[in-house]
């Protein structure tokens, strides 16, 4: 359905960029508009991909947790509620489930046994997390300049 969220975000960013190009702006106002524009650009790129990313990440994390449950007690992942018709399509529901699953992964890292089987399981967690980093639409965006790249003081 038009206008899409992405199209509206683009339009808002155009307005912000036009306002920011005004040579008469003070330094603080110009910086604020630059910041707003960069955040809009980031949102434009990430918003459409967010729900599919969460659904796929939840599937992968739940599958791994089911395997790890053989090594760690009470690690069974929560099931999406069948009574909730929005569970599969709502971003809020998917994000909430993602938090729950990542909490279980965080616990597993510490509670897996300190032996070869535990180490192998942790390596699988690391593999899953690396794949997640590569897919995460909120984190994968065009590089910024200078110190912004590392986001340090």
């Amino acid at each position, binding site marked *: 359905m038009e206008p899409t969220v992405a199209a509206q975000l683009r339009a808002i960013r155009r307005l912000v960029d036009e306002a920011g190009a005004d040579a008469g702006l003070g*330094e*603080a106002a110009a*910086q*604020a508009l630059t*910041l707003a524009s960069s*955040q809009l650009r*980031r949102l434009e790129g990430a918003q459409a991909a967010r729900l599919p990313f969460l659904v796929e990440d939840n599937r992968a994390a739940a599958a791994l947790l089911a395997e790890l449950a053989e090594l760690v007690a009470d690690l069974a992942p929560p099931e999406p509620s069948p009574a909730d018709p929005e569970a599969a399509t709502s971003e809020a529901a998917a994000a909430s489930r993602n*938090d729950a699953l*990542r*909490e279980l*992964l*965080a616990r*597993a*890292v*510490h509670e897996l046994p300190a032996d070869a089987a535990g*180490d192998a399981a*942790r390596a699988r*967690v*690391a593999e899953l*997390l*690396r794949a997640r*980093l*590569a897919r*995460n639409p*909120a*984190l*994968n965006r065009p590089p910024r300049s*200078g*110190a912004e*790249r*590392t*986001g*340090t*003081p």
Partner: protein
Amino acid sequence: MSEREIRSRLEAFLRSRLGPSAAPRVDAVHRVSVGRSRENWLFDATWLDGGAEVSESLIVRRDPLGGLLETDRAVEYAVLAALQATAVPAPAVRWLDGDGAELGRPSLVMVREPGECDYFVLNGEGPLGERVSLARRLCALLVAVHRADWVSAGLGDVFDDPGPDAATVELAGWEAILRRDQLEPYPELELALRGLRAAAPRSARTVVVHGDFKAGNVLLRDGEPGTLLDWELAHLGDPHEDLGWITQPLRTREHLIAGAWERDDLLAHYEELTGWEVDRYAVRWWNALACFKTAVMQISGLRSYVEGRCDELYQPTVAVLGTLLDLVDELVGEQA
């Protein structure tokens, strides 16, 4: 805060410190955007001292409402005051508003030193020979920090000496910040924590650690390194910590020059200047800690953003988390 308001507050602040007969006047106030963790205002102050007019160019560093770091201006003031007794070129500190009662937020007033900061000067447009020479002098500056006699300077009254446990103490400190600020689970950081704890090196000596040593925190004047700025992360610890920070894979463009000033060149020059043997394993551990610390700072920044205390959106990045996982994997592999 507007320029007018900060000027008025600064004049009242100087009156309280210098006495009403000093009749302090504040001019040329303007905010500078350099520095990502503090709100910095430059100004000129003029006052009377025994009938004579005194002028100084000063800078006030105010705490922002939120951001990457929450550090204590009173501690930074104590560090800078103590360093005046050493050969370390730290900025001269003048006054402290520790609780922000006078300047609106906790603030530090320092002398404005001459020079410009350039994060990427080592990979700038200058001739290669000059850039390598500058890299060697920056290394010498770090050595001056590590060689500072912190006991005589009184820094033992400001910080605890972590001794051989510097690595685990520092890791625990950043874990505490993570626990305070994280809004969601980060299994990536749990993996890193577990690996770093298991692989932590022991420290052979305690020195003053700057904590954020980089060209971007050094004032350059006619190409010469001058004052070293931004002491808010300084503490006592293992010298390998600063070496790990400046050789971390994510910031090579700030510290190294491909083919001319590589990691091994830097470490060998440091060994030559100090006469201390650098433990390459320890440097790799501190490389990983540098990434962990960066991720935690980004998480603090994210919390500030979500709570409306900071306008810039921070988030642990793919580069930081991915590099951290790789480095910890290597350390754990070496330990196995």
